[in-house]
């Protein structure tokens, strides 16, 4: 294998982006998996894509549009789902299709070449600049730092939000803080992974870690490890086989999940529960 490629600045930027994006996305993914809110995350990632296209169309920074629209979608879907006025499936169906619809509408309205829009759709980690990495680095430090500082409040909120509230933990603030961080992470990773694929990098490493441990701390660490592994392996595959990097990163994360699911010790839970049921009947 020709390794001189790793001496180039663009490749070093990509490796660093995959490292930071992998950690940030996979850490957010732990919330998404354990709080059973993948629907909110999917809505937010597609809203971010639509917002970025709005920015491109109207000529302002696409990342500002991405951040604003992803937070707006969370602000709409979060309370609706929270109060039980909409089922997660309905929220997802309505907001997801709406966001994708306006994203393609903005793309259609955009004059001239669509290459910028397509980069946001598929991601282009190899073109990441220093400023992209700085943004990713800041978001990653903030995400990991807040998890470290507020670990016990986060743990209680993840376990059961009403129970956390009942012992005096500001669980609603924690929930909306998590949504805010999700929006920030999606925005910072959008150019690297792409609006259509980013949510897989959030969900898959955390879902894989969830298969392997009964410790929440270990789940955060494993998830971050799988996120980085997916990023770097995907990047290598992209280079070796000349494939789109966002796609190879996401496919790698899916493979990691499938392997974890096959070797999951938690598969025994089902048999164990059945045994309990049988004992209960006797």
């Amino acid at each position: 294998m020709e390794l001189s490629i790793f001496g180039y600045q663009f490749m070093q930027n990509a490796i660093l982006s995959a490292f930071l994006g992998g950690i940030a996305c996979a850490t957010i993914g732990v919330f998404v998996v354990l709080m059973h809110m993948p629907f909110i995350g999917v809505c937010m990632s597609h809203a971010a894509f639509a917002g970025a296209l709005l920015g491109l169309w109207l000529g302002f920074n696409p990342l500002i549009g991405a951040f604003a629209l992803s937070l707006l979608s969370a602000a709409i879907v979060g309370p609706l789902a929270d109060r039980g006025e909409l089922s997660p499936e309905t929220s997802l169906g309505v907001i997801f299709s709406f966001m994708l619809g306006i994203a393609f509408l903005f793309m259609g309205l955009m004059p001239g070449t669509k290459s910028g829009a397509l980069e946001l759709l598929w991601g282009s980690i190899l073109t990441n600049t220093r400023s992209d990495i700085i943004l990713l680095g800041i978001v990653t430090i903030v995400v990991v730092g807040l998890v470290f500082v507020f670990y016990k409040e986060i743990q209680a909120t993840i376990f059961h939000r009403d129970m956390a509230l009942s012992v005096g933990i500001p669980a609603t603030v924690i929930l909306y803080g998590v949504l805010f961080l999700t929006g920030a992470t999606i925005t910072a990773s959008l150019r690297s992974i792409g609006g259509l694929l980013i949510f897989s990098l959030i969900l898959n490493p955390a879902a894989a870690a969830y298969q392997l441990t009964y410790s929440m701390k270990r789940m955060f660490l494993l998830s971050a490890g799988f996120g980085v592994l997916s990023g770097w392996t995907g990047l290598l595959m992209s280079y070796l086989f000349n494939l789109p990097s966002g796609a190879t990163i996401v496919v790698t994360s899916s493979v990691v999940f499938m392997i974890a699911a096959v070797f999951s010790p938690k598969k025994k839970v089902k048999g164990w529960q059945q045994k309990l049921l049988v004992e209960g009947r006797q």
Partner: protein
Amino acid sequence: MGRTVINIEDAVVSYREDIALRGVSLEVNCEEFVGIIGPNGAGKTTLLTIVNGMGKLLNGRVWVLGDYLTPGNSHLLRKKVGYVAQVQNIDPRMPMNVREVAMIGRYGVLGLLRRPSKRDWKIVDEALGLVGMSNLAQRPIGHLSGGEQQRVAIARCLAQEPELFLLDEPTASLDWRAKTDIMELVKLIHDSRRLTTLLVTHDLSSLPVACDRVVLMREGLIWGEGSPEKLLTDNNLSQLYDIPVSVVKARRQEAISV
């Protein structure tokens, strides 16, 4: 027993178009054990939630442990109130063990930015010991039976070192053995820790033993209150639940003979 610790005055609570409480007033004294019964939709759970500040009042006011509840102070009050809900559906794959879940009771008391100390873990271990769960302390929480999960929920409340103990149908959906065990445990904790306890239940057989006073609720109103012996008659229960006296008698007989 003596001083008032809970004073609910003319409380009205509504969930969108449904009115859950229609002007309820109730006083509870320190160290009193009050049982609350009534048919589904009577407002029993809502009554508990306005005491721990999780329910929103449309009208009236609630005075708890020396302060009127406001949106600004309810989270502070909740640190002094232990709340055990009905058996929850816990994800069997949840990455937390029994000891960690019981420790959540300490988190509110500890406040932000403070980690549990050795003393906090000692309090948690003692609470688990009291509810008979020490041997399962390291087991994943989702691997417990409903009765065991309720014991952990009670241990979490004990770890909180509360002044008020609120229980919302803690024995619902449990088998007879688990029900009697949990009720005995609740009574033991109430007596030994000298707590003020409010218990919502459908388990009428346990009330005369456990409670100093019973509150009967129906359609968002207090329908009667007094001693269990005086109030829990077949006639009263027949009217409260809207079923014939003969059916009440038969069901109570069944409950005794189980």
